[in-house]
């Protein structure tokens, strides 16, 4: 079960980073953003990298989570204890409906990507027109000067770091558990060859749906966290296509075949963009550097940094390659 060992190592690193970040509020902020994007990218990649379903509309689920919390807090005065589960339930239900529609007609590849994008855009424009959800202005969560555990309001940053760090580790743990179970094998089989998987007893629609719903649920948790942390949501920041693209970018650069690949992407890129923002005064230089990196890596390193690292590691300790088929056949004959 080397997968669990890897997750344990990653979790230990997350905890270590958290402890280090305790010394400085700004580091904690970077830690929090990294975990936020990391968890999102890992959940996105459960679909894209592990099950072969490329979604360009994942911001929809982040938005559902964020708006549930923001609307609940600012309009109804509901605490996160109510609104977090509410957001997750709505997001999972939305994913179920979208999935049933899309998978029924076997949409895949670009078609599935564009279909999810279309759902996202419909939601974006609907929220922009909805008075109850603050239209394009967004919703401000009420803040008070007192800390409140009930409303997830803290002056210190570490509680937020604790929450999102836990979300991230839980996401990885759930992911790893599923990967070693039947579900995970079925997902990867569907990614590699749907027709063959179905012939071997995989209920493609059910398993794709399950993946979609899980991924949407995790994204909604992240969205709910975002609303409590930033205390402000508007359509552009939580329903915009930029967010979905970010998940894709972290996954591509980190490596999509591995559960923790997208997290590596986020760990490298989130602080990288923070750093670039700090050292460079040129307009847009951060995004230019980022875009060049994306193009180059997507072209020359299709398996991502994590994939490249593990391939190297495997090659180093690779067992001698087994002999050809003829010798096996011969062995069988003699047996």
């Amino acid at each position, binding site marked *: 079960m080397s997968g669990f060992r890897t997750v344990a190592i990653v979790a230990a690193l997350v905890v270590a980073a958290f402890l280090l970040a305790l010394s400085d509020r700004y580091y904690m902020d970077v830690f929090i953003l990294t975990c936020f994007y990391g968890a999102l990218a890992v959940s996105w990649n459960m679909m894209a990298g592990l099950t072969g379903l490329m979604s360009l509309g994942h911001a929809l689920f982040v938005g559902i989570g964020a708006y549930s919390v923001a609307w609940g807090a600012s309009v109804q005065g509901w605490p996160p204890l109510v609104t977090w589960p509410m957001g997750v339930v709505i997001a999972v239900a939305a994913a179920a409906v979208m999935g049933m529609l899309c998978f029924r007609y076997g949409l895949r590849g670009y078609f599935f990507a564009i279909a999810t994008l279309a759902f996202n855009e419909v939601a974006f424009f609907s929220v922009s027109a909805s008075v109850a959800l603050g239209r394009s202005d967004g919703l401000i969560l009420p803040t008070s000067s007192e800390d409140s555990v009930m409303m997830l309001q803290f002056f210190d940053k570490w509680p937020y770091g604790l929450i999102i760090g836990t979300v991230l580790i839980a996401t990885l743990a759930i992911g790893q558990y599923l990967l070693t179970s039947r579900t995970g094998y079925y997902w990867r089989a569907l990614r590699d060859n749907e027709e063959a998987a179905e012939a071997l007893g995989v209920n493609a629609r059910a398993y794709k749906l399950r993946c979609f719903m899980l991924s949407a649920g995790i994204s909604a948790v992240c969205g709910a966290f975002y609303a409590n942390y930033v205390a402000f949501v508007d359509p552009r920041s939580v329903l915009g296509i930029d967010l979905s693209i970010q998940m894709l970018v972290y996954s591509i650069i980190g490596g999509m075949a591995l559960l923790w690949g997208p997290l590596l992407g986020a760990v490298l890129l989130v602080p990288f963009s923070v750093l670039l923002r700090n050292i460079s005064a040129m307009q847009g230089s951060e995004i230019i550097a980022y875009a060049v990196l994306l193009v180059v890596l997507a072209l020359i390193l299709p398996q991502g940094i994590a994939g490249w690292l593990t391939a190297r590691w495997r090659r180093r300790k690779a067992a001698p390659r087994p002999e050809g*088929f003829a010798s096996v056949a011969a062995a069988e004959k003699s047996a």
Partner: protein
Amino acid sequence: MTALLELKNVGKAFGGLKALSDVSFSVAPDEIFAIIGPNGAGKTTLFNCIAGALAPTQGEILFQGRRIDGRPPHEICAQGLVRTFQIVKPFRGMTVLENVKVAAFARHPRPRDAEAAAHRVLAHLGMEAFAETDADELNVAQMRRLEIARALATEPKLLLLDEMLAGLTPAESAAMCDLIRALPRQGIAVIVVEHSIPVVRSLCERAVAITFGEVLAEGTTEEVIDDPRVQEAYLGRADAKVDA
């Protein structure tokens, strides 16, 4: 004798185009059965109808007395009918063991059980040495063998093999034939779609010949192959192809 698989007047039309019509035959629980016919006769369509990849537009398909026509492939697999693909379709992002494990999950939901079952199948097929190899790195013959390993791991009662010998060397073919021949003894009936008459003769007890989507002859392998209509349809066209 109760038939394991029974086809009653199966037909399949794509739009106005009839690919199959009125196909009927049955397969017994312990035999190796062949579907033969020239290229484009509708063998693969028939195959896809049985395995659930396509839904027939007419007739019934019964497996162990239950209707399976129009059911999705995964349900058919769960009932004990599994297929392989002519163009191999390994899960390229997985190792050989993982490939087989996917199939073993059909009978063993717990990962540990599935893994043990997968190892048993690999050992049985003499592929244990490849367990940790990436499926992507196998050669054609090995991939064919992996197809069979995966199919067997679903613990089927009936195995559908689509052109398993295409592209293999004579030695590899012989090994594959031995493997297939041993299956009925393990309680697995086999249907092969095969092009090579000598192979069919040596492997199969009974056969059905189809051409233009219709049954031309059904019976023992010898009867079917020696049937003059089959000879004409099959060899005549084959000759024409050689000439072209």
